[in-house]
């Protein structure tokens, strides 16, 4: 894993510095934020890490239900817990 550049993204209104090649799911865990909250109010994070289980859905740049483990962070990206 070679990671060169780092940049900032915004997670629930807070700035977070991440390295290039970081998935949004990994970033959410680094920020200690849940990816989504279930209808019963439980915090949820990534389970399968490979785009299958749908547990890591969050709102990325205004688009709801993005599987964050399959989306790579890009500079100034905005992520909100769903």
């Amino acid at each position, binding site marked *: *894993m*070679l*990671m060169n550049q780092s940049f900032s993204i915004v997670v629930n209104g807070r700035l977070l510095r*991440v*390295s290039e*090649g*970081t*998935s949004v*799911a*990994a*970033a959410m*865990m*680094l920020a*200690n934020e*849940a*990816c989504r909250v*279930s*209808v*019963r109010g*439980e*915090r*949820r*994070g*990534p*389970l*399968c*890490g*490979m*785009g*299958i*289980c*749908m*547990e890591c*859905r969050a709102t990325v740049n205004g688009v709801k239900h993005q599987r964050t*483990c*399959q989306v*790579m*962070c890009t500079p100034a990206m905005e992520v909100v817990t769903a």
Partner: protein
Amino acid sequence: MSCGFDVVVVGAGPGGIAAATIAAEAGLRVCLLDDNRSPGGQIWRGLHPEAARKGPHGRDFVQWTERLRRAECEVWSGWQVIDCAAPGTLRTECEDEVRDVEWRKLIVATGARERFLPFPGWTLPGVAGAGGLQALVKSGLDVRGKRIVVAGTGPLLPAIAAGLSDAGANIIAIYEQAPMSRLLGFGVTLAGYPGKLVEGLGYFRKLRGVFYRTGSWVKRGEGSMRLERVTITDGRSEWSHDCDWLACGFHLVPNLELPALLGCEMADGYVSVDELQQSSVTGVACVGELTGIGGLEKALLEGKIAGWSAAGRENEGHALTKRMSSVRNFARRLDRSVQPAGRPIPRQRVCGPTAAAPHAAGATCTTSGGGRTVQAGRGARAGGR
């Protein structure tokens, strides 16, 4: 938009890459599509060519990605199959674009996912699949100094623990739920496959000093905002570990949604194929984990056979089938040693209907969101809770 190819390959892991490369080298118009951001599948996920040269599977990765690049093959990364629009046509999507793709030959190499068994607390952030946590680490999750319990079953657990340890994690323990007797049976089997045995020993050497125990499994996970503690049992007593992550997976199940949608015949939870990897549906071949969990060597070999076969060069395919019996045997015995038997499996159904996921037996807990959606397993834990 619609387009057509001689061969469409779904899934860009080792099996799909081998199939697409061979078919493209033989002069066919080939499209290789995959949901992930770059080819490689799970085993080659996140590998960088420079770093890969040193790794255990690195040489294969470098060799095949290089060959794929030289072959004139279209590679669509970030594309998902969502439907069969008509016979011989797949409907695919990528973010906000949809394309119908026509094929003359279709090679399905959708691989496998981890089997998850539920337990109280399994939805807490900090509980991930074993391969799942490995994938997260490969995509930037920092686990340096984090306390990790690895649990579940299967030969992947020590390999994954070794990888996490390399990434700087503090592996507290590995709990393998299969009893030692069954593992020893598999160990004897492994002895017939020296390459695999050496690989396994290598992981254990790296993990020297890490507590490894068989016949025990996770009873529950606890924590308020995220996982803080895991309780383990051997069926008689219980004990707990404070930890940051639980990496828990019960071996693998094949991703059968697409072969099921196409109507491929199955037996014992896998797609039935002939010597040249052809399924019961004309023009559709299946390779890799879909035909039996067997790992890299089996996937590459089957991919090559399917590639030759798609190119009408069956003789080249037949020449490779001699090597198949040993890798298939390995797959069968592996399957037997890691069946989640030997402990009660929760009876209650923890998720929605399993109609579109025929392999999702009872506690496997994979479920499909929409009836015709190929990307099933959606909402495995999400189902209305």
